[in-house]
């Protein structure tokens, strides 16, 4: 059986989510916009799900809009704030250098369309500084968008503080919380969040469904023209089973969250401590300010994809921010944003855990990974230079 340690890419579905979806597909096939009883049963499933998702992030159900996932929610949030800002002559947006491509590529497009984009430094620890956000805000800033937790290295930003800065300056604050929702407690009011993106498949729900939270009073222009679904802002017959599955998954993830986080954190820390013993290796991002499940490492002298393939062969599914996996010669923009040189950034490995992993699986990885690094280093001309006293 393959050991799955790529939960930041996607997670296995929980029984609760599967059952909710099956029930919906078998018994609740109506169109939620129909006024007959069959349709109204589907409507209740959707509105019940909306109520649950809202409650679990501290929002009101009128503030939650279902989408096709995290990518769509990010695009919608950014376009909404850009459109609203532009009407008032505000065409400046602040974000960070290591956002997900869903946000970064959208921002790059806006830049080509005449917006000015400022990207905050994330420093070597993978954390944004609230005072640097404060000084980046201008009269014409339309939006600040900072990811809650980074998908590659797992660092968790001081979201409440960043939100407070935006609140005090009257700027809309969006956070891509795709990696954080269901892993850490979130309260949009206490944390001063105006808009938030989430995606079901990162918390044991189905793929292709997510949500955008948008605070009442923050303008949210129509994203998809069509019917009256999602309060007229996103037309199209709802994906009822997926929405029900997402709500069930989030309920399950938030139940007993603290205990689950403790267990997962302990497994993560065991990995971090074990791999600290590998010479010329490093943990990427702040040691403590990170998600319970994500640990990212760089092993000097080896290339990430090669490590990944050998792990796969040994029965472990992991991931790498390596360039050669993505088809470009540049290593991951996240690792470069931390200030890592290219040759080190090429040797990255991400292990991302969930509550479904076991301590036995962790021990297995600790057993097989160091010999893999050793084998690859043995045939690596880069390692030969490091070993013979190159840069540390």
């Amino acid at each position, binding site marked *: 059986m393959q050991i799955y340690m790529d939960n930041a890419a996607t997670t296995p579905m929980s029984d609760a989510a599967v059952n909710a979806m099956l029930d919906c597909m078998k018994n609740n096939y109506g169109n939620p916009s129909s006024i007959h009883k069959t349709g109204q049963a589907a409507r209740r499933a959707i509105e019940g799900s909306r109520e649950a998702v809202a409650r679990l992030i501290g929002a009101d159900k009128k503030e939650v809009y279902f989408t096709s996932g995290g990518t769509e929610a990010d695009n919608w949030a950014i376009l909404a704030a850009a459109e609203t800002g532009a009407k008032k002559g505000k065409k400046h947006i602040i974000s960070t250098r290591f956002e997900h491509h869903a946000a970064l590529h959208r921002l790059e497009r806006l830049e080509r369309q005449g917006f000015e984009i400022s990207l905050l430094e994330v420093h070597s620890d993978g954390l944004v500084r609230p005072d640097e956000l404060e000084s980046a805000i201008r009269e014409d800033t339309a939006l600040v968008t900072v990811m809650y937790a980074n998908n590659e290295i797992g660092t968790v930003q001081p979201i409440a503080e960043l939100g407070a800065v935006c609140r005090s300056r009257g700027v809309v604050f969006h956070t891509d919380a795709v990696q954080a929702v269901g892993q850490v407690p979130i309260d949009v009011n206490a944390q001063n969040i105006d808009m938030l993106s989430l995606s079901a498949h990162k918390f044991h729900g189905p793929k292709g469904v997510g949500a955008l939270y948008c605070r009442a009073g923050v303008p949210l222009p129509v994203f998809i023209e069509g019917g009256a679904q999602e309060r007229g802002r996103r037309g199209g017959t709802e994906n009822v089973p997926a929405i029900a599955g997402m709500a069930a998954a989030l309920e399950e993830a938030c139940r007993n969250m603290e205990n689950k986080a403790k267990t997962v954190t302990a497994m993560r820390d065991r990995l971090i401590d074990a791999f600290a013993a590998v010479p010329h290796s490093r943990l990427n991002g702040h040691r403590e300010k990170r998600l319970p499940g994500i640990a990212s490492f760089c092993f000097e002298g080896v*290339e990430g994809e090669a490590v990944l*393939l*050998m792990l796969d062969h040994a029965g472990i599914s992991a991931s790498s921010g*390596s360039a*050669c996996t993505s088809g470009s010669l540049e290593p991951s923009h996240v690792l470069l944003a931390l200030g890592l040189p*290219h*040759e080190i950034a090429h040797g990255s490995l991400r292990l991302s855990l969930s509550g479904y992993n076991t301590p036995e699986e962790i021990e297995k990885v600790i057993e097989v990974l160091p010999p893999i690094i050793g084998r690859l280093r043995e045939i690596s001309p880069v390692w030969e230079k490091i070993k013979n006293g190159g840069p540390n």
Partner: protein
Amino acid sequence: MYSETVMEHFSSPRNAGKIENADGVGEVGNAQCGDIMRMYLKIDDGVITDAKFNTFGCGAAIATSSMATEMIKGKTVDEALGLTNKAVMEALGGLPSAKMHCSVLAEEAVKAAIEDYLSKKEAV
């Protein structure tokens, strides 16, 4: 993503290692772009009697290094100079298009090692 042949050469690379006092050594690529290949050749009477490699790189880089060394062993220098990345890719049962550049490196590494050999020979 990779063919069985690629995975086989990646998991058990042929000719990984070094040749002491090699007749030709060539290194191509750089750590910046993520793949470095160093090729060592033993050449007797214009025939490649041994070839070994050291590679820092992805699965395709290691597999193409392995295949390229296999393909040039026993060949004359002239024959080896005719080795193309296309031939290496074909022998591997194909590579994903994003991995083309890794096979180009293998061709270049062979050429660099042979050039090193020829320039040393001239100097003698």
